[in-house]
């Protein structure tokens, strides 16, 4: 029993890193542009399918696939921000409700475009991130999943360093704090919005390409990740980077442990239920400071 707990907790930590990464991207977009991107999970789908296409094209290295996915999804994110979200921006702010509804339509379009092009089958990539497993006594951990965790953390750390130490990163945070003041200090809110959305999407795309060697890709995969990304943002607290990482691990572990007590299939309920509790009890999130009003 104890071993089970440790094993599932370890599994949870590994998926949790991914949830954290996904939530971080969404949190960035949400925090800076004040728009909830319902199509965030579809960015992950697009990343995963970029990896599939690379595999079909004969590129077996998953790392090359990740780089390609980041580039493709960054471009798509940029186009969405430029041509769909920019027209909704009035005086440095995106119309909250129109933005929400638009991204809803976008998620429907993207998921079904993938379905139309690639068909409903579950697909895999040929390459693996690493072969074999690490054996710690009775505990067996796939090396691949460990690499996914480490890569997620590295990407998260890179984003945090970028936001903290570079001038552009500071500008992004300034726009998140107060777009008018940022604009008045000479920051182009327009450009920051484009950059933010591209970066946030790129992280989701990277996540998509990262997980495909360990699991499989299918057109509707994005929805569940969208839900988990929202849960991460809400539970961790809007604008809180540490909150997102903490909430990612929390969700991953709870979801993984729930397998022990809940019948199989129910584990996807963990995200929405924890999100709901957080919204009701502590709308600002565990580590957030702003109240849950927007």
């Amino acid at each position, binding site marked *: 029993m104890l071993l089970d707990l440790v094993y599932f907790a370890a599994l949870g930590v590994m998926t949790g890193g991914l949830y954290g990464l996904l939530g971080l991207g969404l949190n960035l977009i949400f925090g800076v542009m004040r728009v909830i991107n319902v199509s965030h999970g579809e960015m992950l789908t697009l990343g995963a399918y970029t990896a599939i296409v690379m595999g079909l094209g004969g590129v077996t290295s998953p790392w090359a696939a990740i780089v390609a996915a980041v580039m493709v999804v960054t471009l798509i994110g940029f186009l969405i921000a430029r041509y*769909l979200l920019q027209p909704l921006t009035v005086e440095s702010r995106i119309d909250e409700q129109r933005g929400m509804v638009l991204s809803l339509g976008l998620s429907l379009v993207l998921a079904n475009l993938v*379905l139309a092009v690639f068909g409903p089958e579950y697909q895999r990539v040929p390459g693996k991130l690493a072969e074999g497993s690490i054996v710690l006594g009775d505990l067996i951990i796939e090396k691949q999943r460990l690499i996914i965790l480490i890569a997620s953390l590295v990407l998260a750390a890179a984003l945090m360093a970028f936001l903290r130490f570079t001038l552009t990163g500071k500008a992004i945070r300034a726009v998140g704090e107060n777009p008018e003041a940022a604009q008045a200090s000479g920051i182009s809110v327009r450009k920051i919005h484009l950059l933010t959305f591209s970066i946030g999407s790129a992280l989701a795309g990277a996540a998509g390409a990262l997980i495909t060697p360990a699991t499989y890709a299918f057109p509707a995969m994005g929805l569940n990740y969208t839900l988990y990304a929202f849960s991460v943002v809400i539970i961790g607290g809007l604008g809180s980077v540490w909150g997102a990482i903490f909430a990612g691990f929390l969700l991953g572990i709870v979801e993984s442990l729930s397998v022990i007590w809940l019948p199989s299939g129910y584990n996807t309920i963990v995200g929405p*239920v924890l999100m709901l509790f957080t919204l009701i009890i502590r709308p600002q999130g565990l580590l957030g400071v702003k109240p849950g009003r927007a």
Partner: protein
Amino acid sequence: MTQTFSARQVAMILAVVIVAATLPFIAPNDFIIHTVCIALVYAVLAASWDLLYGFAGLISFGHAGFFGLGAYSAALFTTYLGLPAWFGPPVGAVAGALLGVAIGVPTLRLRGVYQALSTLAFSESLHVVATNWYSVTRGTLGFNQHPTFFRMIGELHKSYYVMLATCSVCVAVIWWIARRSRMGMTFRAMRDDDIRARALGINIVQQRVLVFTLSGLFAGLAGAIYAHYVGLVSPSELGPSLTILVIAMSTIGGVGTIIGPAVAAVVLYALTELLHLAGTVYNQIAIGALLIAFVLFLPDGIAGWFVRHGRRTPAKS
């Protein structure tokens, strides 16, 4: 607030009424009648969404939750108590209303995106339960043990008139609540400026729960009617694509008008059924693309376009 109708409007309304009343006799095949029946259910659903968003300013990302809960409650209730189908719709309405209270009360403090996400979380939780609670809902196979109003084959005409009557009455009642009653005015006051509304003596807490309850009631009722018409309830009735469809219908029709979303629901559903011939994938893409286009270029929908172009349609509230 009395309104006069122009001769042209009277003629149009009359034409719609005549076509609706005689459809079973003029339709070339049963498929068209069936499509219209389902489309009418969507009209109620879209109108109930509009009541929440267009009038009270509360966005629901989980309307499928109300619809699916209404459908499942009605189906399960009539099956296990061995009652005829006619008991289903009231049960569905009550279930939807209760869910409205259940969502409305705990999320009172929330605004905007937070409130939208809480409705999404609610309906997704229900979706997971309906998918996995096999012994009760029969999971993804769908539940089909409950009675239907009439048989699908041979008695479609009777079904059609039942659907036409209930759905028209529902949309009319929603319209009246939203645009003619005190309640509707209170909701609008709350939407436009909740601080001022509070200063005017409106109990915001009470009104928010009330509008959630009403919207849930009609959405649950729509679900129950659907369940007892089609005879099959599946977890996809609780899924996000249904919510997206309803939001698309309302946005395209014109939020804040009730009639716009209801009409758009009928037209859009009929169109997507025709597009079905080209494959479900493409009709989903078409709906999504249409939704995006309307949000970008015509955010107040077709009804809004009519208003701006000076037709004598009722002005947007």
